[in-house]
């Protein structure tokens, strides 16, 4: 990372942390996908940025990055090309992040993140072979398939074309790892491959119920890799391709996977499963490295509250375990997530945004929040609740005007995006984070006195 992105005539104020607290250009609240991308985007553009939040939330990410996998909610097929439905989405939800930003900006955001992660040693793969970038389709530990716009390189070899691969797949589970059954994956995917063969391997020193992060760490050990290889070798000749649970190393998963593949002389790929997700942990580490490399400051495990705006700057209180510090920032990106990330809070009677007490677009009563079927095809109305913004991703007040000139919102807190149904989480996070930061930079470049 270098500072060539710094705009002319733009000097970054020196960060200081003293008795008066922390000063910065931009405070990003939240350290999930949107917060990390916003922090990185700001830092590489020369802003003095502080990211405050809990990066561990990224271990809930499968590692797969979605643009748009399903539209409209309830349709029974995955989208091949997200751009094809973007106009329709914009008509249906004019305030959706994708409607505000547009396809080019979305692709630009994915490109930014891809380059950044590649530089951090975590390469991603996009659909290859066509002029337009389309969705890939990969298998999951459930034995189901899901789309992905950008998948970790370690998952790419398992990608399916038109929902299938005409190969023989060897699915490998590791004894002791709870919740990943080779038999289940093999039977779930049986119709999508020429043949699927389950295999359970036993690795030395791996206890029953081993936490995935421990197992992933152990798989960086050459001796453990040897044990894995020796058991794969007798079965590899039967197979064209080999799928493993997504636990193959933490620090250098692409290197480890490439090494293993070379030794068994077969393409290898990882199959994502539930949290704690190792591909999510790798993302967390990569983003942290990116931020460290750009000089952005990451304040982990703190809570931001009590914002005050004096007409020029925001002052917020950051609470650590036992102490608190004041943060002064010229702009703020609110990327605090939804209910699980505590960016939104549901009281018994209504949904509130706890930091800035912003207006939350939401159904009129709790009885409308959820359908009485969990897997309702249309999705639950509450999943479309959230913060509405203007085209610069600035939250709006009840009269439809930006609440503050330099308060932005990004990520899953935004309204009208049922990301779990539409498979649109990462793309929304990326494009809103990039757009918000770009808008802030633009405003500063325009010399509006900040």
């Amino acid at each position, binding site marked *: 990372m270098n500072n060539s992105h710094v705009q002319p005539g733009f000097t970054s104020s020196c960060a200081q942390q003293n008795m008066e607290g922390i000063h910065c250009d931009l405070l990003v609240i939240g350290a999930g996908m949107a917060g990390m991308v916003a922090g990185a985007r700001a830092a590489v553009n020369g802003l003095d940025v502080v990211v405050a939040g809990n990066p561990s939330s990224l271990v809930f990410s499968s590692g797969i990055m979605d643009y748009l996998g399903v539209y409209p909610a309830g349709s029974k097929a995955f989208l091949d090309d997200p751009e094809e439905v973007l106009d329709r989405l914009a008509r249906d939800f004019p305030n959706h992040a994708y409607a505000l930003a547009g396809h080019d900006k979305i692709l630009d955001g994915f490109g930014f993140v891809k380059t950044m992660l590649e530089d951090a040693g975590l390469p991603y793969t996009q659909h290859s072979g066509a002029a337009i970038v389309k969705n890939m389709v990969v298998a999951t*530990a459930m034995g189901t398939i899901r789309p992905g716009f950008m998948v970790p390189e370690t998952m790419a070899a398992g990608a399916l074309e038109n929902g299938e691969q005409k190969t023989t797949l060897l699915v490998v589970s590791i004894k002791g790892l709870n*919740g990943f059954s080779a038999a289940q994956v093999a039977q779930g995917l049986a119709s999508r491959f020429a043949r699927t063969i389950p295999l359970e391997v036993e690795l030395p020193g791996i206890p029953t119920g081993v936490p995935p992060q421990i197992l992933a760490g152990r798989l960086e050990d050459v001796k453990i890799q040897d044990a894995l290889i020796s058991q794969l070798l007798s079965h590899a000749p039967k197979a064209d391709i080999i799928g493993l649970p997504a636990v193959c190393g933490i620090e250098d998963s692409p290197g480890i996977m490439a090494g293993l593949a070379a030794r068994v002389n077969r393409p290898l790929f990882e199959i994502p499963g539930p949290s704690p997700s190792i591909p999510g942990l790798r993302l967390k580490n990569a983003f942290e490295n990116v931020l460290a490399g750009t000089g952005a400051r990451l304040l982990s495990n703190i809570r931001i509250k009590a914002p005050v705006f004096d007409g020029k700057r925001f002052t917020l209180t950051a609470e650590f375990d036992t102490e608190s510090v004041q943060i002064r920032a010229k702009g703020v990106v609110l990327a605090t997530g939804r209910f699980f990330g505590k960016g939104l809070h549901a009281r018994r009677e209504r949904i509130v945004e706890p930091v800035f007490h912003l207006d939350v677009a939401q159904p009129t009563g709790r*009885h409308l929040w*959820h359908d009485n079927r969990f897997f309702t095809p249309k999705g639950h109305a509450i999943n479309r609740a959230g913060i509405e913004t203007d085209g610069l991703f600035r939250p709006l007040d009840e009269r439809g005007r930006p609440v503050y000139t330099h308060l932005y919102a990004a990520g899953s807190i935004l309204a009208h995006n049922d990301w779990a149904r539409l498979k649109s989480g990462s793309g929304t996070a990326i494009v809103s984070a990039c757009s918000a930061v770009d808008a802030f930079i633009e405003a500063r470049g325009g010399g509006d006195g900040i």
Partner: protein
Amino acid sequence: MKKTIETQVLIIGGGATGTGLARDLSLRGIDVVLVEKGDLNDGASGANHGLLHSGARYVYSDVEAAMECRSEGMILKQICPQCIEETSGLFVAVPGDDEAYIADFPEMCRKAKIPCRKLDMDAALEKAPCLAPDAIAVYEVPDAAIDPFKLAIENMTQARGLGAQYISHSQVLGFKMDKSGIGLARIKDTRTRDEFSIRAQIYVSASGAWAGGVAAMAGIDIPMVFSKGSLLVTGQRLAKPVINRLRKASDGDILVPGGIVSIIGTTSVRVDCPDRIFPTVGEVDLIINQGRQMVPDLGVRRYIRAYCGVRPLVSSKDGDDRTVTRGFALLDHGEEGIHNFITITSGKLTTYRLMAEKTADLVCGKLKVSEPCKTGKLPLPMAETGDWTAPGASLRHGFRLPDRNDKMICECEMVPASAIDAIAADVCRHRGRPDLLSIGLRSRMGKGPCQGSTCSARALAHLYDTGEIRGRDGIRDLTRFLNERWKGEHSLLWGDSLAQSSLKEMIHCGLFCLEMEDE
């Protein structure tokens, strides 16, 4: 040629009464088959407070029912202590409650021979620190908590040991009538859709809220009304004793401990049909707003789950369904010319044994069997597989994993793989097919704070590894299991519970895309 099973008595319905009757008849040496359209306790037997009434609840409305509860409660405490926690119960009045009602309470209890002791506020708060400090009267009575799942499992287990047969997921489609009554029951396996027949000498419908529908197949009209009652499960146990509101039966006025949780209910809402019901947001709020008057903590507690059952009432009277007698209805359809058909319905969990006894007496009279009832004295044996039903059951196992190779499947409720295996084997033994729902029914799996977010997938992987589930059946199983959990979640999702359920959606829709699968 379809299969026909021959037996002396066919029992329809696997709730508390049906399983109790299976045990009672088996102990008298009678050959029994029990068919259940779902699985054990799928109806009201599995959707109540788990309260073993002292009878004090009924001293005003129905002294006879109160006395039945008292004597049955005493019997059950003797014969199946493993299913019961002797918690005692408090009756609590708060400002605004009917003072005449409060004043009469001790005398009414005395008339029903129910021990009742007035507590001063200090003593009351010592027994239940969560009580509203401004309570104006507190009495203590011998209420207790009972585990209806363990009870049904153990009744059925002993009956099966004596030769009875339990057939789950099998629904009566109709009866073939002959000149003396019912000649044959036509049954459908609801999972394989195979049809078969059962020929019995006597047919007993113990099908609770579905008794009217079963009787109609024999051409008999039983006028039934359905009163839905919803209940909420708290994340933690709020009090050692049962806490009742000292007033005329109403909404949200009983708080019962169940292992490490507490259950607050109920409501009473007339419904047209006992199927496809779920607690509504309005009911949830009503229960909380009423319950918090006697236990203020209920206003701020995290709730794990809501569920509801249907009180089957044989009556067509107007007014509050809770004022209709809660006594049971034992109907000998010989009076309508069908001499080998009996219906036992309504009643209470507390009196299930008595209902079974009276029904068995009637059956024996028809079969000319003179064996007396043994269930009043004979202890109910403990069944190994009944061990995983109670909230916090694993705490009684001392957090002990028997074996280092035993995986933990449900971390919230500490259900290990060995428990899943034991339950799966037991389900197989009575010609069932183990799946997540049947295991969930027999264990605490998925019933903790995460409501199956992660353990459901772990259990499924384990069942694939052990070969219990094959092909793509697991995806349908998981979908059904999570939809079943959802019935009890969606009305009380706010705060932390909503955050948790959103994680569940992130995993099962966001990652696994289960909503895209055909059910």
